[in-house]
């Protein structure tokens, strides 16, 4: 009997003008979003790949100069654009893409592309993720809001209840019927188009690499739509009036999609306020100058370093050292600075994480936000990936400094600051290659959002069960 209900719901929805119109509109927007995503990916990917090669070439072609000057010139690290950014651009427009790796200073990742966009850019970008997270749930609401209430209002509920089907099976059949129609007529064509586009843009090898993430995302989105179908049918059964059901469901959607993200931002900022750039920079500079743990000022530190070097090598003056003191001093000053950066940036990143943990708590109140975060994570366009990139770039910066200072220490013993090195040394610094996070790591980071989605599905199924219990004629 359940399958009969499923079959009937599926067929009646197929014949419904609403499904036709929503398919036309959503597929039209989807194709536009896909084209935009493809073109954005191809341009940006090409630019960033070229920029990463250019910066390394500039580094290798520096000519002969003192290693410390080379470290000051530095090189840039660019955050690569993942193939799945075509599907979900996530926060990439709001996160920087380039960081300057130079001596002495840990810089911030800069170039938020949204800065160039002006007011219109703050309205949101038309991406596949946006359509799947915001538009499709709304379409489901518009298709299913009156599923039970129309039975009440038109009197056909009497006929249904007079059959032998249990009310829970009736509701389940309806849910499955609507879900099948939505998945087959709206979701599946979009998924196939997306897969085709990803294959075309990335090639077979890249496509094979992202297939696990894409497959998992596809399943999670299907479950996400199941949440909305169950939600709509439950409200429709509970509220009995089509108008009221639609108003309530639209209210839930508007709150989950528009209000909660903005409210969460205000709450997070007030509970965990970020320091101003002025305060942060001042703190870093002052700690670098005065030193941590009683190291004292930079001058005192230099004196202590000189004394230690003379003791370690058993000589009486710096000119007798078998190594370059400049090399020792430079690396020691880097080590000293790195402690300050780890402390200050570490505190800042912990603050961001506290803010984000708070933002994530709000995902429990909205399946749309939970799905948005999971989707971004799988696509590799979220904050965790960005922090991961920041860490890897900083490690590369420190490696560069160490290679330069070690060379200065060993080979610069006679000429000190006049010592010049060439391409042979520059080549010792490898090209910066960002290593992606594994799928396991991404899922671990998103455990709360995944849990939220699970709670919503289970909770709503229980609501559906309760609605079935109370389903009766007035």
């Amino acid at each position, binding site marked *: 009997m359940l399958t009969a209900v499923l079959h009937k719901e599926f067929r009646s929805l197929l014949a419904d003008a609403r499904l036709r119109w929503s398919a036309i509109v959503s597929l039209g927007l989807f194709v536009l979003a896909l084209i935009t995503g493809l073109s954005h990916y191809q341009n940006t990917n090409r630019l960033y790949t070229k920029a990463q090669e250019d910066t390394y070439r500039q580094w290798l072609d520096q000519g002969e100069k003192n290693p410390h000057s080379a470290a000051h010139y530095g090189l840039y690290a660019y955050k690569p654009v993942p193939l799945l950014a075509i599907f979900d651009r996530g*926060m990439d427009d*709001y996160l920087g893409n380039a960081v300057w790796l130079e001596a002495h200073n840990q810089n911030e990742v800069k170039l938020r592309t*949204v800065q160039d966009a002006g007011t219109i850019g703050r309205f949101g970008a038309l991406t596949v993720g946006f359509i799947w997270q915001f538009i499709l749930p709304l379409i489901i609401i*518009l298709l299913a809001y009156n599923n039970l209430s129309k039975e009440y209002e038109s009197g056909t509920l009497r006929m249904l209840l007079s059959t032998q089907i249990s009310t829970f099976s009736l509701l389940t059949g309806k849910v499955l019927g609507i879900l099948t129609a939505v998945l087959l007529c709206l979701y599946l064509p979009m998924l196939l188009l997306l897969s085709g586009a990803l294959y075309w843009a990335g090639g077979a090898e890249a496509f094979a690499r992202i297939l696990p993430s894409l497959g998992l995302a596809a399943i999670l989105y299907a479950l996400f739509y199941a949440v909305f179908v169950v939600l709509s049918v439950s409200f429709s059964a509970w509220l009995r009036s089509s*108008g009221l059901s639609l108003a309530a469901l639209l209210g839930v959607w508007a709150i989950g999609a*528009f209000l909660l993200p903005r409210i969460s*931002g205000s709450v997070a900022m007030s509970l965990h306020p970020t320091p101003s*750039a002025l305060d942060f920079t001042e703190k870093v500079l002052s700690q670098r100058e005065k030193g941590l743990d009683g190291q004292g000022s930079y001058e005192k530190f230099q004196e202590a370093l000189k004394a230690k070097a003379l003791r370690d090598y058993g000589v009486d003056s710096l000119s007798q050292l078998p190594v370059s003191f400049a090399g020792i001093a430079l690396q020691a000053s880097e080590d000293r600075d790195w402690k300050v950066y780890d402390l200050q940036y570490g505190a800042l990143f912990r603050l961001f994480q506290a803010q984000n943990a708070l933002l994530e708590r709000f995902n429990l109140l909205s399946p749309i936000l939970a799905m948005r975060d999971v989707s971004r994570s799988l696509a590799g366009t979220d904050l965790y990936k960005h922090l991961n990139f920041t860490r890897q770039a900083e490690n590369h910066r420190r490696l560069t400094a160490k290679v330069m200072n070690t060379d200065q220490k060993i080979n610069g013993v006679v000429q000190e600051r006049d010592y010049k090195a060439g391409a042979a040394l520059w080549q010792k610094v490898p090209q910066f290659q960002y290593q992606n996070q594994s799928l396991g790591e991404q899922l671990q980071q998103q455990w709360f959002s995944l849990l939220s989605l699970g709670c919503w599905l289970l909770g709503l199924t229980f609501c559906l069960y309760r609605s079935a219990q109370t389903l009766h004629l007035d």
Partner: protein
Amino acid sequence: MRNFYFIAFYDWLMLRANKMLLSCFALLVLFVAFALWTGQQRVDFHQTTLDKVKATEKRLFAEKSQLVADLEQSGKPFTGNSHRDPTEPNGAANSAANRYFSLAPTPLAVVAVGQSDLRAYYYKFGLHKKQALYHGEEIENAAILYNGHFDLAFVITFLLPLLIIALTFNVVASEKERGTLPLILAGTTSLRNVALNKLVFRFGLLSLFFSGLVLIGLALVGISIAQEAAGIAALLGVTTAYAAFWFGLSFGVNSQGKGSGFNAAVLVGVWLALLVVLPALLSVAANAYYPMPSRVELIAETREASEEAKKNGAQILAQYFEDHPELAAQGSKPVDTKNFAASSLMVNLEVEKAIRPLEEKFEVQKDKQARLVAQWRFVSPAIFVQQMLENIAATGDAHYLDFEQQMLNAHAKYRAFFTQKIIKQEKMRATDYDQVPKSQYTHSPGLVRATRAGFWDILWLLGAGFIAIIWGLLQVAPRKMAEPRWIEA
């Protein structure tokens, strides 16, 4: 007119008894309170930072000029890091005589966060390349930036229409669904007039309520209503016109005589199209027609230009003296083409010149995108209402552009002061510190013109609302509305 009072009175009674409608007004109070609180938090943060910036500048100038005065008196040389020697103009400009150019938030900045979370609201002047001015970004959590802010502009642009839809989607349909429609039709007023009068009453009620709420809210937040009367009047004017548009639209949809479900679906569909889809499409179009050049390319070109210029440092300096012979003639001191400070300054200027063409490409494309958006803003009232509210709050694109322009002029003056000293190889005396150019941002009259462009926007809102009402009035005879119908999908 008597009819209106009659209908309004009974609608008032009905609204008072209807819990869902009462909760709309309660929600509005919550929204406005939260929005003004959010706006106030941000304005306070900016103001606190700017106060610190001012204090830092004052303290640094006082400290360093005192240090220089002491060194002058004692005759001793400076013994610290030579890059930070306050007795040398380049050392002073790098670490002692830094001027800050700030944009203080206006009182009405609580209304709209606008671009104030993305754009710089102060710049630190020094002797580095002009591009370095843009490196001082405020620390912001990208996730919070992405989500946007719950400010009054958001409440007006996005939430007010939803509340209007909730207040009006069943103004006629509920009569039909409850069975009271025949009673109304038995009266002397046409259903069309009843609906119109009801909507006019609800429009008046909502507008007055919202205006009162905003005035009280702004006063509580510490804004002087008398002083900001013009801005507040503009704010309430825009909001009222925008509300009129949505009420008119609702009337048009209600006049179709379909069920409340249909009305809500259509109105929310229009809301989604106007506020979410069309702005996103316009953004896509702007980027497709006038794509921004890559900033990544700008970085690569700047570094190439830097390397080139550094190699030719001495030549560039020599060329500068050729172009400015009045500076070469020193009298007692010979010109030193190996002057490191002078040559590095010249290198910076040379690099700026080299990348100017690429920078201009950015400016041209940005300007073209802005023009396209300005021309096509009428596809969606959300775009121009948001822009108008940002202009009232002085946190829109136009203000930041103006701020940047004035900053560049001030920076040029600042740099010229130090360039003179470096080229002439003069020292920085304690008295020179008072001579370092100081500039302040002033709101340009041109921006007032930008706000006046709102005239066409208001006209669009009132016109579109009016057309929707006329369309509604021209609908089929009221009798059809009374026909029993199965509830439509």
